[in-house]
């Protein structure tokens, strides 16, 4: 599971108010390199909940990876940003798309319901008694 997905998911169990952001407890994660696509990142940025993304990188022990505030379009479009390892574009790309949570848990902030992540697949399915009527 990429952090992009973590940013999109919420708990919809009975009793959850917003169910977001899910607390991330990581047992094992890996890096899978991918080609950065600046257009994709620019399009996705406005839809990202920045605070939740920063919190997720902190849960992984990478507090330096992202700046406190979302990058501007100008920063993402800067020339050579895709090639420069340290550019904010590359760091955003790494945070959203290269970090892969293999084993861990997503915890609902309202109900403490745990959604396991196993072999990279988060299991968001509810038990019978958790479905809202």
């Amino acid at each position, binding site marked *: 599971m990429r952090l992009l997905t973590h940013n999109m*998911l919420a708990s919809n169990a009975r009793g959850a108010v917003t169910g977001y952001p899910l607390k991330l407890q990581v047992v094992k994660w890996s890096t899978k390199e991918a080609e950065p696509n600046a257009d994709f990142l620019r399009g996705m940025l406005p839809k990202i909940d920045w605070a939740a993304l920063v919190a997720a990188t902190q849960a992984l022990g990478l507090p330096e990876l992202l700046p406190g505030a979302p990058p501007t379009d100008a920063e993402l479009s800067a020339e050579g940003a895709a090639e420069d390892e340290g550019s904010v574009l590359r760091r955003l790309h790494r945070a959203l798309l290269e970090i892969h949570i293999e084993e861990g848990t997503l915890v609902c902030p309202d109900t403490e319901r745990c959604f396991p992540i*196993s072999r990279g697949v988060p299991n968001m*399915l*509810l038990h*019978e008694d958790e479905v809202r009527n």
Partner: protein
Amino acid sequence: MWYLCVFYHRLLDYRRPEVQSLAELFGGPGAGDAVEWRMPENHHVDSPFHLVRLPGDERLAAQIANRSLLVKGIYELWGHGNTYEELERAVVEYPEERKLPYLTPESTFKIVVDSFGKVISFQEQNEIMKSLTYIPFMGRVNLKNPDHKFFVMETDDYGCNNGLPPVVQRTVFFGREVGAADRHLLPTYQLKSRKYIGPTAMDAEMAFLMANQGLAWPGKLVYDPFVGTGSILVAAAHFGAMTMGADIDIRVVRDGRGPDCNIWSNFEQYKLPEPLCVLRADNNLPPWRPGLKEVFDAIICDPPYGVRAGGRKSGGRKLIKGTVTPYTVPDEKRDSHIPSTAPYSLAECVHDLLHLAARMLVMGGRLVFFFPVVREDGVANPAKYPEHPCFKLIATCEQILSMRYSRVLLTMVKVGPYTEEVEKAAEQRHREFRENHHKWMEEGNLHSTVFSPADQGAPVDRDSKPKYRGKYV
């Protein structure tokens, strides 16, 4: 400019929409609608020969043809006629300035003689080529890698109509190839050599057609809420799109058939980037955070409609039947508990899908999915396709599966924004489905329609039916 567009003689309904989708993809917004079609004189619409006007230059025509699966070739038509004499007159009259740039001494060329409905012997082909002396070819012949390819194509009433209405009159075309489909990717992606497939894995050709309808492209995000073994996402990823998938069945999405045979291995097999995410989730209760919308560029899927695989949703089998009070999972069992799921009616499934798409697709994004249609007397019911205020239906492509039912690939474009009213109306519908679960399960039960025994009438005389390979002709 008008071109001759020659199709493969298969999936007849899918051919024009594919060209239009690709025109939109390469030509920009509105280009798909600007495509115009005509049939050559005396040709039935099921004929492989179509005339098409594309809103752009030759490069656009080449891009469309090269990415398509069903375009055998797009040609600049130099002339056509009912006989070779008429063809000669037409080609001679075709403006010199359009012809000469492709006939220069520095260029290499090749002539292909092709036909529809008959094989032309090598000797006849040679004779036809020799008769083309009225075209001043100056270049050298290169059969392997020519600069320009010229095609002579003919179709006639050869006594066998090849599954089409009888050809009224012979037609001969002469054209210069602008682009052609690359069907070499089909043997590469065919299901029989794919590591991990399931009972309803999408056929490779169809998956590519769906990805074309969904305008899969690098930097676009494609989502499949019924991902299964990932066969649709593989096609989207081949065209460079980023992919995400969800499925309610954990065994399929997580386990597969072992560590080297699962969704991920399917992407590895073709050296494609793996999906951004595969999650286990219920299409009926999608786990997206409140306020999240307009993230996917396309949703492409094959919903379970209950003929080969039935849909499931969470909520518990017995609870929905109303026979027991809600089942409470003991705390010590919570971690390993596998919740029972309830059947999911097609109507509710499609409703949830449209709602998901209305919320999660960007404006102009595409929803591409199969919808089953019952056929009566060998013709698909004039169907009522699902509708949604946010969507415009732009293509319906039927694939006949049996005497009793077809599946129709629906392509919808998001044209209206996702508003609070849309959301409220959807919630209301959601409750309605929940309260009248039984009614909805019985309505539209496709399985019994498709599999119930035939009426005990006179046995059907198989030979009495015309063996057309066209759609309805």
